[in-house]
């Protein structure tokens, strides 16, 4: 039984992942992402005069907060709108298979989007000695961050049959998580900041990006993923 489930997740994953690349949206999204990140990174790179990707990773949560909900908005909304949702639910698969398949496809897409930025790292090595340990842990953190935002985007997509609504809900949640620390610094007392920044994706991501991989930071992202996917499951249950 367990085997059958992983098989189904694999089939749904394959189908979903492929469908990103048959429409032009994937290429547009990836191009915009690379363009913006490239500009943000290299425009200040020579001013900083440091062989490090820290600036790139500092901007990443905000960029992901806008880009990833745009990638995930169609996951459920489109199916509900076109009516294929009915076909999907009457196939011999469980909600969990569907959610995991779609979620993993979104994460794989984020990985594909992130992969070309490794070129930045390679470029930087020509100009100074880059600390590869930090780079690797930063990419690991970036994947976790991307996965967490994908899960949130998926949840938002399950909420509405309208893709625009799904995008706005997803973006709103992701922006809050990405910029929470910045907001708090302006508005709250220091003692409260310490408490609230535990909810901030930016805070946990930056900890990982510094090169210190702490189980608390990883646990944070896994919790966000779990809560969002579980929420999507509840919504699907509720719609029956």
């Amino acid at each position, binding site marked *: 039984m367990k085997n*059958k489930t992983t*098989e*189904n997740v694999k*089939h*749904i994953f*394959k*189908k979903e992942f*492929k*469908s990103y690349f*048959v*429409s032009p949206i994937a290429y547009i999204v990836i191009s915009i992402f690379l363009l913006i990140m490239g500009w943000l990174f290299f425009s200040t790179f020579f001013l900083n005069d440091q062989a490090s990707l820290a600036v790139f990773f500092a901007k990443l949560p905000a960029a992901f907060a806008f880009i990833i909900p745009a990638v995930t908005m169609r996951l459920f909304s489109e199916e509900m709108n*076109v*009516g*294929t949702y*009915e*076909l999907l*639910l*009457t*196939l*011999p*698969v*469980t909600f969990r298979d569907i959610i995991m398949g779609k979620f993993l496809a979104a994460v794989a897409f984020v990985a594909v989007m992130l992969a070309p930025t490794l070129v930045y790292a390679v470029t930087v090595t020509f100009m100074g000695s880059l600390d590869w340990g930090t780079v690797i842990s930063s990419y690991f953190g970036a994947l976790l961050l991307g996965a967490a935002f994908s899960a949130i985007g998926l949840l938002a997509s399950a909420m509405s049959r309208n893709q625009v609504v799904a995008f706005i809900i997803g973006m709103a949640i992701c922006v809050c998580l990405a910029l929470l620390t910045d907001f708090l610094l302006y508005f709250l007392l220091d003692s409260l900041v310490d408490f609230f920044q535990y909810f901030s994706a930016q805070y946990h991501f930056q900890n990982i990006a510094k090169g210190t991989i702490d189980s608390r930071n990883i646990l944070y992202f896994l919790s966000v993923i779990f809560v969002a996917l579980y929420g999507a499951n509840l919504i699907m249950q509720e719609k*029956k």
Partner: protein
Amino acid sequence: MIKFENLTRYYGDVCAVDHVSFEVKKGEILGFLGPNGAGKTTTYRILTGYLQATSGTIKVKDYDIHEDQLEIKKLIGYLPESAPIYHDMLVYDYLNYIADIRGVAEAGKLPHIKKLADLCSLNEVMHKTVSQLSKGYRQRVGIAHALMGNPEILVLDEPTVGLDPNQIVDTREIIKRIGKEKTIIFSTHILSEAKATCDRFVIINKGKLAADLTIDQLKDLTKDRSFEDLFRNLTRGDNQ
């Protein structure tokens, strides 16, 4: 084979299906008839696991929809009304995907897809995307979808709607041919078609069972009047 027991479904305050009970025997072709909005599609959706029953149950073989939904889904091939299918997928890719999900073994997959393509005359469109297909072809892809993996039970929601006369005859032929070894529930608004294809007839109206007739009983009742008259009598009589 399939036993509907006091099946009831509410949408908010509106009762779409109201204590419907009937049984479908193995190998039967059942015509499930009724005016628009009678609750046919809702009944199908509960049977196929897309919706949940408010009360009552359906038993397929020894499985109950409330407990063994996945097992029931494996037994049923379903063609929803107007056959919604992923627009951006190639017909071949789509059938391949459904074959994977339905657990068709890798070795027998290609012959099985070929067989269904022959049966539903899909050979010339296998490498077109679904969005390029005419309505008739889409409907046939939907039928191939329902037949994938040789399910024991077929549920076809208005399989001939929107087809031209030639295609209607073809589709009816397909149903009759596969009906020899399968249990089929299907609905249509063309009563002569139902009479020519089905062994039994269940007529529902406003969510309630209006008639449950074998072909012999129907022939008896329609000796001195048309099936259309009988249908109007059964489904409009309680209006006045």
